[in-house]
Every structure is written in structure tokens, then in C-alpha cells.
């Protein structure tokens, strides 16, 4: 299926995009939302289940207090009000991997509501209003077998794994986000990225987008430039990387613009995002009248967090990421521009972790925004998915500080690390990268350089010590870069009597 799109600039010239983002976060509680089953990711299918999360006849849910605590933490961190009294509701709909055929969720009485947060894009701060953050349970996971696409159509049968059923989720819903159109997609990405940082800082989730513990649904609609009438929205489901959030929003803007330009109507529906092709395709049609028959969950007593508890939790909150950023910038002595590059490059956390391991902020920034960010860009992965972490960076930098590597060699070590060739030590060994620190080998090379460049020696001797640089270059070339330049200069100077 091909869908016409227009160029993004053309789309934005005619329409103002309006967004709403719904982010589902799987909490990292030890047990599930309503039962004591473990939540370990990747366990054998259906080994982490019980009568409760399987929805067996007679089984009853009991709320996980730790999940409530995490929900309150998230709500507070997003500047939300925390409900004094809230309830769960049943959202009734059929889905083969949903054991009870209703999802226990929160409806009109969420635990957290009316919040706000900020994101920074290209140095501009954008305020995002938070509608609500509510608690719910995850569903099981279906695998469709026997077809070519892995989708249900064409499959011969489906397998259901209920290990994920009942894992606590927090759904964070923004109010309508209206930012300058050209910033929309970047703001969406920055928001999800900011949330990830925040959730990580709160310690409430592993926020692994690749494992589905952070999933974003992006609602996008267009209104003609200058108009105040909202258009029909689509909801692109389960976008699973920051980059994809940006791409999916951009794609929907260009697609909807094309539909509207051709005189068509945007259909209110859910859409699937395709990572490989970078497009969305139609899912199920979703009208406002979709009837979940919500009603208060009679199996659960209301949740009424005491104000004392809420304040106690507030007292445990880590520094807000924006405050923390300002503090780190000051501590590190980075310029605004440098800090923006760090944040936009999603390198803040890796740099913090690297600095904690004893590396200077400047050196940490150099590696994370240099070698590593470049590699991430080229391969379309996230920094934290490269397989090179703060520990490796610190190890390499330590070798540089000790004089065992120079920057050039260090870059080769990173190349080896990114290619999975082993530890830095193994890579240095295998690739023969260690700096030559043996003076005799250096002196021999210096002698060779002096012998080969009598004209340069002549210049130095005639009162132009700067000319010695050429000799250093010759020595380094001779040593194939594996020499400490400072050491070479020291030895050369001694030799030439400068």
C-alpha cells in the first residue's frame, strides 16, 4: 500500500499540527499490579502467572502498594495533583490476550492529574501540560505463528504469553500540545526522551523502549494555519524509540496534509507504525463512541493515599531533571551550547555516569558526543544500545591519562568496542595499539628522523626551535602513531639540546 505524502515544509506551510502524547510505562515493581507474581522480563512463557493474573474464575485482585507509590512519584515529578481518593475502573473490551476481558484501569478518577513539565528543543523551552497519570495493568502478549508477516492475518495459530498480563503500567497523558509546527516532531521526541530520563531518575521503571517498558502513542491532527478548529486525529500506537516518535509524528503530518490537500477526510483511527519503512498504516477505526462500559471496579476498595504519605514520597524525589541539568552545567563548566548538544544528543546520563567513574566532564563529553554519538547516528541506534557504556569509556580514558593511549589510538579502541571485539585490553592487544613507552625504541626513531631530515635539524640549530615539529611528525609516523607525542618532544628536545 502506498500513501501519498507531501513534503513536511509544504505541510507546515498550510497546517498547524496538534499533538497529544500517551506514554505507557511499565513499572519495575518486583510483583504485578494485582497479585504477587514476579515481573522478570524474558522468562519462559506463562511461568509467571497465577489464578489472579490469569483471571481464573473466582480470583480477585489486590492493589500493589509499591505500584501506587511509584504512580505517586511519577505524578509528583510531573507537578501533578495527587488524588486524595481515587478508584480503579473496569474497561470492558475483548482482546484475546486479556484474561478477564476487562482491563482494570483508572478512568475518571486517576491518581494524578493537572500537571506540567518542560522540554528543551534547540535551546527553547516548551511547556507540556499533563492531563493525568493513571494506573492500570498490562495485557498478555500474543505471537502469531505461521504467517509471513508475524501479524494475525495469514497466521495459522496464535500463542499467548500471560507473563506480562498484570504488570503495572502508568499511562501518562498530555493535554493538547500546540507548538510551532516545525518543532512539533522534535518536541514530541524531546518529551518522550525527557520522560525516560525522569522515570530513570525516579527509579520506577527500567524504561527499556526495546523491551516495551516505555511505549508511546502519538495523537496527531492538523488544522489549517491560523484556524482554531481542530481536525480529526489519528492515534499511532506503540512507537518504540525516540527517533521513531519524531519520525512518526512527521509522517502523520505529511500524510494527513496530503489527504486534506486532495480533498479527502482524515479518518479517526488507530495506526500502526512501521519502523523499517517509516510509515504508518491504518489499524482499527476508532470512533468517539467506542464503548468500554467503564464502571468502578467492585473488586477493589478505593485508593486513598494519606497526605502524610504523599509528602513523605515527595521528600524522596530526586532532583528534577531540569534543575539537575542546570546544576551539572555549572559544575562541569559547560557553555549553554555545549549543554544543549549534550542534552539533544541524549548523552547527559552517560556523561554523568562516566564522570562518576572519575573521568573529567570534558573528556566524557568528547567521547560520548564524538565517537559514540557518531556511531549511534550511523547505525540508527540509541546511545545506550551501542554496547559501550560508561565503564568502557572510563577505562579507555584512564589509559589515555596514563599515557598508554593517545586520542587517536583511543578512537581505534572505541571502534573495536563498537564492533564487539572484546574489552579495551583485548582490543589493544589484538590490534597492537599500545603506545610505545620504551625510550630506546623512541630514541632509535628520533635518530632515524634526524638522519633523514638534515635540513630540518639545520633550521632548528639556526635558532628556529618550532621547526622541530616536523621531526616529531616524522617520529610519530615512524612509530605508526603509537608513541606519546609529549614524550617524543621531550626526548627530541634533549637530543637537539633545545
Amino acid at each position, binding site marked *: 500500500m502506498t500513501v501519498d505524502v507531501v513534503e513536511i515544509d509544504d505541510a507546515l506551510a498550510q497546517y498547524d499540527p496538534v499533538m497529544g502524547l500517551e506514554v505507557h510505562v511499565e513499572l519495575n515493581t518486583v510483583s504485578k499490579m494485582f497479585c504477587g507474581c514476579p515481573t522478570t522480563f524474558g522468562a519462559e512463557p506463562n511461568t509467571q502467572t497465577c489464578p489472579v493474573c490469569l483471571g481464573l474464575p473466582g480470583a*480477585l485482585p489486590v492493589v500493589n502498594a509499591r505500584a501506587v507509590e511509584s504512580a505517586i512519584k511519577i505524578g509528583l515529578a510531573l507537578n501533578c495533583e495527587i488524588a486524595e481518593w481515587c478508584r480503579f475502573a473496569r474497561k470492558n473490551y475483548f482482546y484475546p490476550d486479556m484474561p478477564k*476481558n476487562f482491563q482494570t484501569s483508572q478512568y475518571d478518577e486517576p491518581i494524578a492529574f493537572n500537571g506540567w513539565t518542560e522540554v528543551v528543543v534547540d535551546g527553547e523551552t516548551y511547556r507540556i501540560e499533563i492531563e493525568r497519570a493513571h494506573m492500570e495493568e498490562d495485557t498478555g502478549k500474543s505471537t502469531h505463528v505461521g504467517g509471513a508477516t508475524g501479524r494475525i492475518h495469514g497466521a495459522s495459530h496464535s500463542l499467548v504469553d500471560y507473563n506480562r498480563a498484570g504488570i503495572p503500567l502508568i499511562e501518562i497523558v498530555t493535554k493538547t500540545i500546540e507548538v510551532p509546527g516545525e518543532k512539533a516532531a522534535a518536541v514530541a521526541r524531546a518529551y518522550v526522551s525527557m520522560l525516560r530520563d525522569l522515570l530513570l531518575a525516579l527509579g520506577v521503571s527500567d524504561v527499556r523502549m526495546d523491551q516495551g517498558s516505555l511505549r508511546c502513542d502519538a495523537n496527531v491532527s492538523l488544522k489549517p494555519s491560523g484556524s482554531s478548529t481542530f481536525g480529526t486525529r489519528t492515534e499511532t500506537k506503540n512507537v518504540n524509540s525516540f527517533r521513531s516518535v519524531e519520525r512518526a509524528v512527521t509522517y502523520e503530518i505529511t500524510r494527513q496534509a496530503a489527504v486534506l490537500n486532495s480533498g479527502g477526510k482524515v479518518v479517526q483511527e488507530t495506526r500502526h507504525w512501521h519502523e523499517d519503512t517509516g510509515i504508518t498504516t491504518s489499524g482499527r477505526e476508532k470512533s468517539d463512541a467506542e464503548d468500554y462500559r467503564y*464502571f468502578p471496579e467492585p473488586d477493589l476498595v478505593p485508593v486513598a493515599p494519606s497526605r502524610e504519605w504523599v509528602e513523605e514520597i515527595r521528600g524522596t524525589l530526586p532532583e528534577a531533571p531540569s534543575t539537575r541539568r542546570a546544576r551539572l552545567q555549572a559544575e562541569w563548566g559547560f557553555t549553554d551550547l555545549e549543554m544543549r548538544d549534550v542534552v539533544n544528543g541524549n548523552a547527559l546520563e552517560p556523561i554523568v555516569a562516566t564522570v562518576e567513574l572519575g573521568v573529567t566532564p570534558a573528556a566524557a563529553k568528547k567521547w560520548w558526543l564524538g565517537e559514540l554519538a557518531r556511531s549511534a547516528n550511523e547505525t540508527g541506534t540509541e546511545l545506550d544500545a551501542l554496547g559501550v557504556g560508561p565503564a568502557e569509556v572510563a577505562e579507555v580514558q584512564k589509559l589515555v591519562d596514563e599515557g598508554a593511549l593517545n586520542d587517536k589510538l583511543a578512537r581505534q579502541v572505541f571502534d573495536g568496542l563498537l564492533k564487539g571485539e572484546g574489552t579495551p585490553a583485548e582490543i589493544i592487544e589484538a590490534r597492537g595499539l599500545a603506545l610505545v613507552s620504551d625510550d630506546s625504541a623512541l630514541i632509535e626513531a628520533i635518530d632515524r628522523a634526524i638522519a633523514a631530515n638534515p635540513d630540518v635539524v639545520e633550521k632548528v640549530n639556526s635558532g628556529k626551535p618550532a621547526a622541530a615539529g616536523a621531526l616529531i611528525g616524522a617520529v610519530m609516523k615512524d612509530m605508526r602513531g603509537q608513541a606519546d607525542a609529549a614524550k617524543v618532544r621531550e626526548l627530541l628536545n634533549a637530543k637537539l639540546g633545545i
Partner: protein
Amino acid sequence: MNDLIRKTAVELAELMSSGQASAVEITQAHLDRIEAVDGAVHAFLHVDSEGALAQAAAVDAQRAAGEHLGPLAGVPLALKDVLTQEGVPTTAGSKMLEGWKPPYDSTVVQRLKAAGVVILGKTNMDEFAMGSSTENSAYGTTHNPWDLTRIPGGSGGGSSAAIAAYEAPLAIGTDTGGSIRQPGAFTGTVGVKPTYGGTSRYGLIALASSLDTPGPCARTTLDAALLHEVIAGHDVMDSTSIEQPVPPVVEAARRADVAGLRVGVVKELGGEGYQPGVEARFHEAVELLTKLGAEVVEVSCPHFQYALPAYYLILPSEASSNLAKFDAMRYGLRVGDDGTNSAETVMSLTREAGFGAEVKRRIMLGTHALSSGYYDAYYGQAQKVRTLIARDFEKAYEQVDVLVSPATPTTAFAIGDRVNDPIAMYKNDLCTIPSNLAGNAAASFPCGLADEDGLPVGFHVMAPVLRDDLCYQVGGALEAALADQWGGVLMTKAPELEVTR
């Protein structure tokens, strides 16, 4: 040997502790009785002879080893088929669950087992507890031991009939709108609906979560109280379970004293539509209480007239959601799974074949009542009525300690009489429903036989939340006074069942 089946639980416990009978003998006597009469009564859906005898033998061994045993250790019990028992078929009276063996014990069953109570088997009930006659069971109607042409009440007709037919001295029922008390009344036995949350719902196949309450059925007030004590108390597996000590029900049943107790007769529960014989026995019982020193006043609960419609919106709404899980995907019946049908079609075919007419009717009602645009008018309104009814109770309890009424407007009706008139059927729960909506304690005690048909009449006692003991106090007093008149409990007046074996 045969007289073992006529004993109360208390008497059986005494026989065991004095070494005059073993749990195995007692269990076997009841299994024999079941075999002899259940062909005619059909109280049981599944008899677990092997399991029961094994449990009984274990109790005998414990007793022989000098272990400390609970007061009901070794006493047999019939379990309503809506509570899960690990490895024992549990169907909730529905084809949907035919042959399903739960992998876990309900909390009630765990507590029964821990107390050494011997579970004989699973008793018949209206499908998913929807009904007032046990005619809606997918496995056939249960017959009232007092008159086999009559219904035993519902939905727990099997449990009450089992104790009335001397197949078991004790039974467990569940009461959503009267399903313990109404069959109790119709079979001349004691049926108690504990305070909502006073007994755990974990493992109770839900009909309406906010109303369902497991409770005891017995032939005497004390037996019921002893069973109540075994199954009640906080359960961490049930969020709605109350974290308060169990009311002193056994002590109350033993004390059986109403002197100085303020008793309120609910004005709205009586009069037109009530069978004269029922009203006569009820008023005599009230007079008896007065003679015993109770202070009787008439009390008005004006919103009780809306209880029935509110109940018949809340119940189907919750039920429609609770029953959604029966989709043929994971357990129970599966129809049409021949490889050509989609999951949705298999689900439809299964539900069509697996659910009975009453279940379908209530699912449709509930789905409609919850649907957008109707929620406020139906479910929302019904919840408001519920609040008003709870307030009626609160106001009444400012004046009196307990409220009383007939348990049912009529005595047991004939099989087939009301099957085609759901509204007439629903009206049978007029007196019992308000207590479920308010969540407070209530019980039905035998108070005589109606003149016109010679069938048992139930005396209904309602008490505030967690004052279940008051119900037993009144029931015990009434039972003692009537025993003086009758020379024993009412059950002794029941006709002998013809033994078919």
C-alpha cells in the same frame, strides 16, 4: 448408624470427641444418605466420596494423635458449586464450566480444610447464581425435601436442600440478593448472609462483586454460627475483606437472649403480596420475641421499595463484566473450534451454547445499563438508590438494634410455576435484597409452617455491618422458644423422604 445423619454438627462433634463415632463413619453415613435420596432431591452436582473419606480419615488420625482440633473437625459439609476447590469439578451450575477443575482452593475452602471440615461435594445452584429457584441450573432442578414438587429456592437451592434432606449437617452458600436466606426459608433451615467483606470472596466465581457474600447454611443457629466462625475473617487475597475481628457469633448463638433488644419491624416488608400463612407465622414470631423481653417497634425504610429495580440494574451490570471472561479461550467449554472459525466466532458459538437463557438475559441487561449514554440513567441512578437504602438502614439502626421481616413473601412455589415470568421470580427477593445493597448482616431462621400449604416460613433478621452476632442472638432465642412449642427444631416436622436405594 443411620441416626448419625439426624445429628446436628454440634452433636456430631461431641460423638467424635467422646469416641462414639469416627469422622469416617459420620462421613460414610452422609455419603450413604446422598446415595439413597439424592436421586430424588438432586442437591449435589458432584459427590467427592473419595476426597471426603480421605479428609475424614485424616481428621480421625489427627484426633488419635491427640492433636488439637477445631469444633467442626470431621463434620461433613456440602459446598455450593460456585466456590473453587482444587482438583474438584466446579461449574457454577453452568455448561460453560462443565468439567473444569480449578487449580486452586477458594479462601472459604482453605479455611474449611484447615478446620478439618469434611467436604462431601458440590451442590446444585442456579447458573452463575442467577435465580431464585435453582431451576436455572444447567444440570437440572433441585427438589425441595419438604415437597419434591416444589423448588428449594435459589440460587443456593442445592446447599439448603442438602441439609434439609439430611445429606449434610452443614453447607456453604453464597448470597448476592438472598441466595442463602431465601432457600433457607423455603427448606426450613438456617441461612446466614454475613456482613459483606466479613467472609472472603476469593475463589467465589463472581456474580456481582459488590454484593456476593459466602455464608453458612445449617439446621440450627449454633451450627451456623460455628461454621460462620470457621469461614469468616480478614483475607489478604480479597481487597474488600474487612480488617476487623469476627463478631462473637458463637457466643451470641449460645446466649440466645433478646431481653432488652430493640427489634424493628420493617413496615415496607409485608402486607400486599405476602402470603397470609407467611405473615401469620412472622407476626407470631415477633410476638414471641416480645414475650422474651424484646422491645418491638415498627420502623419505616421508605427507599426499600426501590431496592428491587436498583438491584436488577447493579447485579446484571457487574455480572455482564464478570462473565466476560468466559470466552472459550483458556478453560471450560469450547464450541466450533474446528480450524475454520475465527476466535470471535468460536467465542460466540461457545457463549450461545454455554450460557442459559437467564444468564444471557442478564448479560444483555447489564451491557445495556453500562453502555455510554445509559450509564447515568441506569447504573449511576441505581448506585444512588443504593446509598439511600444504606441511609434507611442507618437511620433505622439509630432506633433499633435489629430489623425483622418475613424472609420471603411466599413459601416455596411449585417447580415450573414462575420460570416464564422473570419479574415474578425476581420479586421473591424483595425482603432479602436491601441487606445486600447495604452490605450489612442478615439471616433467615425457621419460624413455623404456613397454614395453607404446610411449608416452612423464614424469619428474617437484619443487623448492622459487623453485628452478625445480633442475628444469631435473635435466631437462637427464636429457635429455643419454638423448640419448646414444637418439641425440637422445625426440621423435625419435615416429611420423611422416600429412600430410593
